[in-house]
């Protein structure tokens, strides 16, 4: 029987995706379907004095216009709007709740018409008078209003005395780094189709990373009972964190369907998606003090990130060094400053992507000051234990990442002086950085239905947002039941399936693999129990641990000639199927730090006259335990590296702060890497055996691939040019200034 775990198995949903049959949220129809279009505020802050929808209503084909004045009932209490991943502090945004405007492009009306072009046209006829209030959207302008978190992170206790140690250190580096607002920009537009089922019940097809989260949220916010709403998301055209929380279009579409008692589809425009959520702009200050041989004596990392006025969103940027470097004196602080924008959100490795960019840029600058090779500095400070709580790691093969990454890159041929390497008219720069992320696991439930014909269905309400969940679920189930992968059907993205938290944080693959494992154990135990009831059973007296399932049989491990055909067992038991469902919780492994690690090496080539920067090569060496699927896993890391290129060189949301309005809310002027921007990317999974973290020794891959990439590129740009740009993205003009 082939084993699928650990192999380069092609996506089981690949055919659906390449033939156009995979259906996304805005693609479901209904015979009574009508279309919505959103009207947005044109001021960043204030109050709606008057909203005139009369012209919109006169448009031939318009059915209704919903505003705060005529919308259906919704919950008043802010708590009713808190979803599973809402910030603890603050009150979530309630679309069309009242006349208050909290950010520019806030949705203030929903036009519903028989065609979407009509709805869009009518939306342009809604007239609004406002009372404006003073606003601020620039982090630098509100920097002096910065405040401590109302709900501080657990992990940021100071160690030793960082400022005294800094003052006394032989070699010091201090600098400020800046990461602008970035937007997720998944290729699929945010969309919801709320299908009115006639009996007052709704099926809502939604673009989300968590169908059960959305389902509970809709019930709570709109006062529906749990069996009134089913939320579906079998395919999602990218999330990257933007679909962790329910987005406003699902509320509007559902409200429209409730009010009109018919099916409503609402697809946002690309521009509207810029006011859903974003990665917060962050200022990072690093102060590093070291001995002349490169031992870290003092490490201060302070971050100030934006949040909205109505919620405190914060992810820790500042404690990542604890998983990487030994240092006796540290001071970490993460603070927020409020601006008149919507609440920021998680975006690929939140906290780490930004914080480690700053940390690893600063480490590079320290290496320059010490005249030390950047890898040598990192090895000098290498921590064998997590520093914050002084814990051992379940595993940490970061040394192997440095070594294998450096070998593959050819790092030993680097000449350390800036501007010392060239290729024709181009300056060549080589830079490196470290990455770190958490290896998380969450409680999740899997159901397996094994039928007598040798087919199995595995089901869970989780999502596949492109991460490969369908495929890894099929692989793990096939191995556990001893079936070919073609005999496995995977069901996910349906709120009526067994429970799952939102898909994010790199926790789903590991968690669902564990749940499938325990569920398959239950299937095997049940089959064995039934087999042992058969006359003259060859398996009498055996325990479930003594047998495996393979090729449609239950087989004794000790004596493979002792077996029973699963089909016979079921026939004898007069069953056509066995159904088992179990929940796997993170196993209690005691006090360990659980992390993934990486080393990233980047080559840039820069036209000396024009300043054009190309990232010609990236090597990413990843330590993430056992890799479930090397093919889809490779794609996750490669895609993350592309994100790192975008972060380093392209991505920046530009706001005209006079109007508090985003200027480049489209995918042409918000620059993202395109095919020609991406050259060689080599992904290495280093061998990292982890017998502690979970039975499969897995850690998750969704986030680790982006962490450190922007720093490696920024360090390469410095090496090429001798110019240190500390505010991202590194654009041509910044090299000239």
């Amino acid at each position: 029987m082939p084993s699928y775990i650990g192999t380069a198995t092609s996506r089981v949903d690949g055919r659906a995706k390449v033939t156009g049959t995979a259906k996304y949220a805005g693609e479901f129809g209904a015979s009574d379907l009508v279309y919505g279009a959103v009207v947005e505020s044109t001021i960043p802050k204030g109050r709606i004095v008057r909203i005139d929808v009369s012209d919109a209503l006169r448009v031939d084909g318009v059915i209704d216009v919903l505003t705060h004045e005529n919308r259906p009932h919704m919950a008043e209490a802010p708590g009713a709007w808190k979803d599973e991943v809402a910030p603890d502090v603050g009150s979530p945004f309630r679309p069309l709740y009242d006349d208050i405007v909290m950010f520019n492009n806030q949705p203030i009306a929903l036009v519903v018409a028989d065609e979407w072009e009509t709805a869009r046209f009518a939306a342009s006829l809604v007239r609004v008078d406002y009372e404006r209030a003073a606003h601020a959207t620039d982090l630098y302008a509100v920097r002096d209003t910065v405040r401590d978190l109302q709900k501080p992170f657990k992990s940021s206790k100071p160690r030793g005395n960082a400022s005294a140690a800094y003052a006394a250190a032989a070699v010091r580096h201090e600098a400020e780094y800046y990461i602008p607002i970035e937007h997720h920009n998944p290729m699929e537009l945010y969309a919801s189709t709320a299908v009115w089922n006639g009996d007052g019940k709704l099926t809502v097809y939604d673009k989300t990373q968590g169908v059960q989260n959305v389902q509970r949220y809709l019930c709570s916010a709109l006062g529906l009972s749990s069996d009134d709403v089913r939320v579906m998301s079998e395919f999602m055209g990218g999330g990257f964190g933007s679909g962790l929380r329910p987005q406003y279009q699902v509320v509007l579409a559902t409200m429209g369907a409730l009010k009109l008692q018919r099916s409503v589809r609402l697809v946002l425009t690309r521009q509207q998606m810029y006011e859903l959520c974003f990665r917060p702009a962050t200022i990072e200050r690093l102060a590093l003090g070291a001995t002349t041989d490169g031992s870290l004596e003092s490490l201060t990392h302070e971050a100030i990130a934006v949040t909205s006025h109505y919620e405190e969103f914060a992810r820790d940027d500042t404690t990542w060094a604890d998983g990487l470097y030994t240092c006796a004196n540290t001071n970490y602080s993460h603070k927020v400053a409020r601006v008149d924008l919507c609440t920021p959100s998680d975006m690929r490795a939140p906290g780490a992507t930004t914080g480690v960019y700053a940390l690893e840029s600063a480490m590079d600058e320290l290496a320059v000051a010490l005249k030390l090779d950047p890898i040598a500095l990192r090895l000098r400070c290498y921590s064998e234990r997590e520093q914050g709580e002084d814990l051992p790691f379940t595993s940490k093969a970061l040394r192997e990442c440095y070594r294998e990454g450096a070998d593959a890159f050819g790092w030993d041929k680097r000449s350390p002086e800036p501007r010392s390497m060239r290729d024709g008219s181009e300056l060549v720069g080589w830079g490196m950085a470290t990455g770190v992320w958490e290896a998380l696991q969450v409680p999740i439930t899997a159901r397996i239905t094994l039928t007598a014909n040798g087919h199995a269905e595995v089901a869970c309400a989780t999502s596949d947002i492109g991460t490969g969940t369908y495929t890894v679920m099929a692989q793990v189930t096939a191995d556990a039941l001893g079936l070919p992968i073609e005999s496995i059907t995977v069901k996910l993205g349906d709120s009526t399936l067994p429970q799952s938290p939102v898909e994010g944080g790199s926790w789903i693959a590991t968690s669902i693999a564990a749940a499938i494992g325990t569920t398959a154990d239950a299937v095997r135990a049940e089959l064995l129990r039934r087999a042992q009831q058969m006359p003259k059973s060859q398996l009498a007296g055996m325990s479930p641990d003594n047998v495996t399932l393979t090729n449609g049989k239950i087989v004794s491990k000790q004596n493979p000639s002792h077996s029973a055909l699963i089909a016979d067992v079921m026939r004898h038991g007069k069953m056509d199927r066995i159904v088992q469902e179990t929940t796997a919780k993170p196993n209690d492994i005691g006090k360990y730090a659980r992390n993934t690690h990486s080393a990233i090496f980047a080559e840039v080539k820069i036209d000396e006259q024009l300043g054009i920067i190309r990232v010609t090569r990236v090597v990413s060496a990843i330590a993430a335990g056992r890799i479930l699927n090397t093919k889809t896993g490779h794609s996750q890391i490669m895609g993350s590296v592309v994100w790192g290129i975008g972060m380093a060189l392209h991505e920046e949301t530009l706001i005209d702060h006079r109007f508090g309005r985003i200027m480049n809310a489209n995918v042409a002027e918000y620059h993202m890497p395109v095919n020609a921007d991406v050259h060689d990317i080599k992904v290495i999974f280093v061998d990292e055996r982890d017998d502690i973290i979970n039975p499969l020794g897995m850690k998750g891959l969704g986030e680790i691939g982006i962490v450190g990439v922007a720093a490696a590129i920024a360090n390469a740009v410095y090496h090429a040019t001798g110019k240190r740009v500390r505010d991202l993205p590194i654009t041509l003009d910044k090299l000239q200034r």
Partner: protein
Amino acid sequence: MARTSTAARPSKQTIPTQDKISIALTVNNVERTLQVSPWTTLLDALRDHLELTGTKKGCDHGQCGACTVLVEGRRIISCLTLAVMKDGAKVTTIEGLAANGALHPLQQAFIDHDAFQCGYCTPGQICSAAGLLAEGKAKTVNEIRELMSGNICRCGAYPNIVAAIQQAMGQTGEKS
């Protein structure tokens, strides 16, 4: 097409939208007639009128390439094309590439090379690549990269997309 009645509302004069125009399209070798407004794009005609949702909308502004289809064998951006402009034309969408259940070589190559993650840009990438192959211009990896740069993949599958296109071109994948 009959419109949903708006007569139930107060009798103020309605603001008319646009009169429908009848057009014919040969989509994936099937002749279709449809009634569309002048402002309806080819993309919306395919997705909303013909229920061919394999063609994707990622921006509606000609910036992302998700809506790429083949018209008379040439790749075009269907969100920047009004349906009425293509009356009588022959359109091929992602749904029409596989022949008799056998995947088009590009479709198979995209699966083999894992040239996607979420799959949302994929129909556009594949149609664009089919157009690229027909153009016969791209010879090197850098030319493929350049000539595929109108199709954004936020999942960042670019190197695999290039490898898949090379496979479909019958190249070895070694060339750079």
